[in-house]
């Protein structure tokens, strides 16, 4: 199944989530905080966008989840990348780099 063409914003969010989960497993808030951290606080993902995205990506087979224990000793749902997710991260990153390069070039042109 080809990767669905996502609009820019959703694509950005997906890419950020994939990136955030690339090195380690995180629960929902962990993903949100990690994104804030790796974007220097530029993106603050609200729960209202975060959870639908996580569930959608899980159903698409990019993420897998398991129940673990949070820092507050509470049962929490953790997410990690699947093989398909890693591949998606790779293709999405390349695409994004192409786009951002093109955008940067376009904006520099006077």
């Amino acid at each position, binding site marked *: *199944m080809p990767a669905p063409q996502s609009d820019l914003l959703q694509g950005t969010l997906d890419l950020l989530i994939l990136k955030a989960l690339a090195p380690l497993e995180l629960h929902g808030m962990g993903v949100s905080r990690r994104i804030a951290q790796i974007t220097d606080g530029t993106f603050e993902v*609200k729960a*209202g966008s975060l959870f*639908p995205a996580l569930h959608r990506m899980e159903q698409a087979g990019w993420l897998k989840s398991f129940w673990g224990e*949070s820092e*507050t000793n509470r*049962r929490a749902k953790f997410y990690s990348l699947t093989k398909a997710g890693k591949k998606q991260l790779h293709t999405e990153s390349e695409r994004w780099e192409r786009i951002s390069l093109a955008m940067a070039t376009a904006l520099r042109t006077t």
Partner: protein
Amino acid sequence: MISRLRALWNNVFRRKQLDRDLNEELEAYVELVSAEKVRAGISPEEARRDARRQAGGIDQIVQNVREVRTGIWLDRLVQDVRYGVRTIAKNPAFSLVAIATLALGIGANTAMFSLLDQVVLRLLPVRHPEQLVIVRETGNHYGNSYGPNTISWPMFEDLRDYNQAFSGMFCRFPTSVTIGYSDHAVQIPAELVSSAYFQTLGVSAVLGRTIGQDDDSVPDGKPVVVLSYSFWRSYFNSDQNIVGRTISLNGNAMTVIGVAQPNFDGVELGSPAKVFVPIMMKTEMTPHSDGLKDRRRRLSWVTAYGRLKTGITTEQAQLSLQPLLHSILEMEVLQPEFTRSATAADGQLFLRNQVELLPGSDNGLREQMRRPLWLLLALTGAVLLLACANLANLLLARAAAREREFAVRLAIGAGRVRIVRQLLVESLLLSAAGTVVGLALAFLADRVLLRIYLPANAAAEFAISPIPDGRVLAFVVGAMLVTSMVFGLVPAVRGSRTEITLSLKDRSGTLSTSGISLKRMLVGVQVSLSLLLLVGAGLFVRTLRNLENLGPGFPTGHLLTFTTTPTLSGYSYAETKSYYDRLSLALKTMPGVASVGLSTMPVLRGFAWQNAILGKDFEGTPIEQQPVLSQVDPDYFETLGIPVLAGRAFTARDVAPADYAIVNETFAREYFPGRNPIGQRFGLVDDMRPVTPNTEVIGVIPDKKYRDLRETPPPQAYFSSLEVSNIRGMTVYVRTQGDPHQFEDALLNRMRQFDPHVPVVDLQTVNEQIGFSLRTERLVASLSAVFGGLATLLAVIGLYGVMAYVVQRRTREIGIRIALGAARSNVIAMVMREVFLLIGTGLAAGFLLALALADLIRSQLYGLNARDPFTFIGAAIVLALAAGSAGFIPALRASTVDPTTALREE
């Protein structure tokens, strides 16, 4: 892909678990956020409140997450269905009315379609039935004919041997044979078949073998028989050792060589063959009548079938056969048999005859039932349409009542599409429930219809079943989907257009005025459709009355009739003659019998013996005006109650070589105009030899019906059966002193005593026989009357509903009028004006529709015009009265509006 499927599986079947997990996940999230805030130094309660606020409404998130789940549409559908079922259950009265209406509509359609499917549409149960064609010759045959689809045996041989169009060709001849048991005999339908019959049809044997080339090469050569599967089961108890045994057919020992495959009862629906015999055994199966061995070309009796070669269309086959037929006709037209029975002008016409190929599954019953069944299906279709209009109106009213519900749903964020879908799902649910009930109704209705329609003894064996097959089910599901769309879509779209603010405010009665005009239109449609159905019902009922009142031209009250054919039990002509002499005497001496008459032709059974005649002043007769003939015994006219107007009746002394005839008035008028018919002479044209007019007219009888009730009495001539020596069988008429029905058992007993080896066939009263001959008309008349009544009822309910709604909506206005001094009668008049406007528009549309469609039913009517003004006006008056009184109730209610209450209500 797999993860998607697993997700779908989970979403559908583990919804609860998923929702619980989601809740827990979000709870954990809130807790983590608040914990973070506490660490930043905020009090725990405040932190928790903050976290919740930041999460932005847990419910909203849950909703959003659900939306992205795979298979959400299925989820929603399940929701819609659940909600729909709840809504339906919440309004039991409405739902019952809706389901009952639909069940009647869909049930009637299914019953009719099921009959149409089996009688008219279904093909023969043979290999590639669509390749099979009946080969017939158009135009007049000039000679003796067994029916419009028959050709002569030599013609069949020529076509079979020289055609280029067929991969196989066979012919058949249906007849009755007597099967003898040790102590009695039974007459059964048989099919005489040419050698290629089974092979060309692709019908095999379940036991033994079918008839092949060797069985059918020499006349009288092979006395063999193949049994039909159902006959083998019922009469031989599925005897596994039947092959090789002999059975007695017409007194001939015939060896059973096989049993045909199940469900195959010959090629003619409605007269299932029980035994199949090689056509070379014709002389044994139809004693004393040939056509096979004497190779007469002027006797057409076999029905020829061909299987089209692969890739050849019917048109191509027809074109390729035409030159062949023409060369055969050119040869025939020169033969003395032809020139004896036809004039030179006839010969020119004869050469213009064409080959015509009919679908191989066609037959008489199909031909006869096609129009009535399509007509009835159209009527039921109109009833269903009307039911849909009615339901649409009900749903519109309900949609108005549910505006607040829709407004609330819209306000909390449901899309309009969602509401349309919800309402459509509800319609579909109603429709499905109606369909299930309707199917049950259709099953019952078909059983009743079959019993009415078929003669009692045939019903048990007839190949029509009331159980619906795949095609019928497809029809039903289609009908269900279409109806739910028709009656559900408009109200659904309208419902989704609800104005949130208006509906949620305490509104005044100005809402949905556009809805009223739509409702009015729907009622108009209902009125016009029911006028159409009422007019149809009126026309068909009056047709039946006309036919019933026609009468055959003689008193039928105390007449019993049956037929025997002694030659089928091995009797010679001389034995047959003495059989009838003795039979007549035996029956006359039975107590309760007034008189007994015999005739070689049964009356009013659709059969006719026609022959061209010649006389001193006329030679031959155009084929359409050939007189119908019969041979009767001296007591025949007296038994049937037909007086002799001039001359005398036959007596016992009128035996050969006397050559007398009694004719009817039309015969006398046509052939002996202006002369005394008594003493005139004529002769029957015979294609085998030249004829001189020797038959002397000795009496004249009044005109009476011969073939059926619909005909104008044709010219008729009767000969004394005592004068002829070649009688094969006769129809017996017994005039009883008491109720003829009560007499049947005694008569059967007497006949068994008299001769157990000659079976009694078609024993019934003449009134029953006449009733049966009108069964199609009765079926159409009674069903159309039922549908007309149903339609009127629906229309009346519909009109009542709309007017009640209108009055309710205008309560305030009416209150003001009354407060300002309008009289109650003025209010009634105001409402009734609207009622009659509605009815009038509907009637006008219905009139136009009925006038336009009248031509379609012309052929089904008798004795009245398809635009019969009496029926049209009568139907309109009935409908106007019924609908008018339904409208009067809301009018009356409007007039009793109390102005103070009405004004305070707002």
